[in-house]
């Protein structure tokens, strides 16, 4: 008899502890969220536009169509330390379009013309292939459609362009509408201290 009581007490204690831990953790998370310490972010290794191995598929544009923010709080960001500064960038040009007199594709890829291409360093005006180019994404124009991200990833590109939540635009919904729609669960809510990428606002250029 005394053994049964002890076991019941033990179960009750464990149950109470679990409930308190869950409530405490949840409350702590909410407090941190209220304090701005919790952020949504795109996990590039889950996003189909940037993760390796998914080739020959259309870019996913759910970040554009599902976000409650105008255009989207998710924008394409070019990480310059990874960018190859190529003459013909598949994220900038539609590389299957007709070739023009300069030997380059005649069409751009971005439907919003949000990427600017600038020659850098010593510029050879005669031969575009003799120059390095910088690709700058205009975040005011970008709507996070992911087309450039898909074309930049390995092995076609170097994977320097990824989609990122911009925290000056994101309204930090309790349940992000993109995360609800994303079939890859690529939108994650994390403490700033646990974020996979810096939560600060990075601007190209």
């Amino acid at each position, binding site marked *: 008899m005394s053994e049964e009581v002890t076991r019941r007490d033990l179960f009750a204690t464990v149950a109470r502890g679990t409930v308190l831990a869950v409530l405490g953790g949840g409350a702590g998370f909410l407090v941190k969220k209220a304090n701005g310490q919790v952020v949504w972010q795109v996990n590039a290794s889950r996003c189909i536009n940037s993760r*390796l*191995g998914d*080739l*020959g598929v259309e870019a996913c544009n759910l970040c554009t169509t599902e976000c409650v923010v105008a255009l989207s709080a998710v924008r394409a960001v070019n990480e310059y330390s990874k960018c*190859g*500064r*190529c*003459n*013909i*960038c*598949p994220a900038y040009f539609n*590389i*299957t*379009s007709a*070739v023009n007199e300069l*030997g*380059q*594709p005649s069409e751009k890829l971005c439907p919003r013309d949000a990427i600017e291409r600038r020659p850098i*360093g*010593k510029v*050879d005006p005669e031969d575009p*292939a*003799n*120059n*390095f180019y910088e690709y700058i994404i205009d975040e005011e124009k970008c709507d996070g459609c992911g087309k450039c991200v898909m074309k930049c990833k*390995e*092995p*076609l*590109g*170097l994977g320097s362009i990824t989609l990122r939540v911009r925290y000056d635009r994101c309204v930090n919904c309790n349940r992000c509408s993109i995360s609800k729609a994303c079939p890859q669960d690529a939108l994650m809510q994390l403490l700033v201290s646990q974020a996979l990428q810096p939560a600060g606002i990075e601007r190209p250029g």
Partner: protein
Amino acid sequence: MQYRHVQVIDGKGALRGIAVDAQARGELYAAGDSEIKVFDAAGKLARRWPTARPAQSVAVAGDGAVYAGELGQIEIFDGAGKLRDTWRDDELLRRVTAIGFTGDSVLAGDSADRAIRRFDRGGRFLNNIGKDNPLGGLLIPNGVVDFGVDAEGIVFAANPGKHRVERYAPGGELLGHIGRFHGIDPAGFTGCCNPTNVAIRDAIYTAEKAGPRAKAYDFSGKLLAVIATDLFDANCKNMSIAVDARGRVYVVDTVKQSVFVFERVNA
């Protein structure tokens, strides 16, 4: 001109550079992980030996010496894998992704500096190739310098950022190029940067990434054949290519870790 796929060689691990033997014994040498692997004509692993550092490239000299390109050095072995010499240079041999021979010189592609280094047979540096241009080197966003050498000692370097194969004299003078960008026409090189790899024999053989394919051009730049496309894993990149004396073309599938072998039809 047409090719047919005749053999798959299991690479027994990672594959980076490949080379055929100079004696036309049908042996294939492969660099990968931290070892050199030698496959016989039937594609069976005949022997293997370790390298001191991860092997990026391999070449076999006329005397049978096997040169392994590594990080910061070249190791020189005899055909059985016994170490003969090591050339160390943290400046000129930072990442040796290709090795070749012209006359009495040894050539090493250093991808860290986007250049080809020319040494004498004793390892003394002579000159750079592909470095003296407004861009300070070959354009290799793919991260690999690769080249081949023809029977006259002319160096054919892949310059993928320019969508060209460039011809250089051993002294470094640019002699000309073949190739152009085109996203649809198979005669062109597509993407940001192709061809990534090149081999020279009776023609110019190239390998491309995204989508992966191997092709042959004559020396004027006319496309002779698309050797293969569909066999390779779509995620392949920097697929080393070699051609033996019989005209068999060997292409590395870096994802499947295999070498696909092709023969010319009605050769």
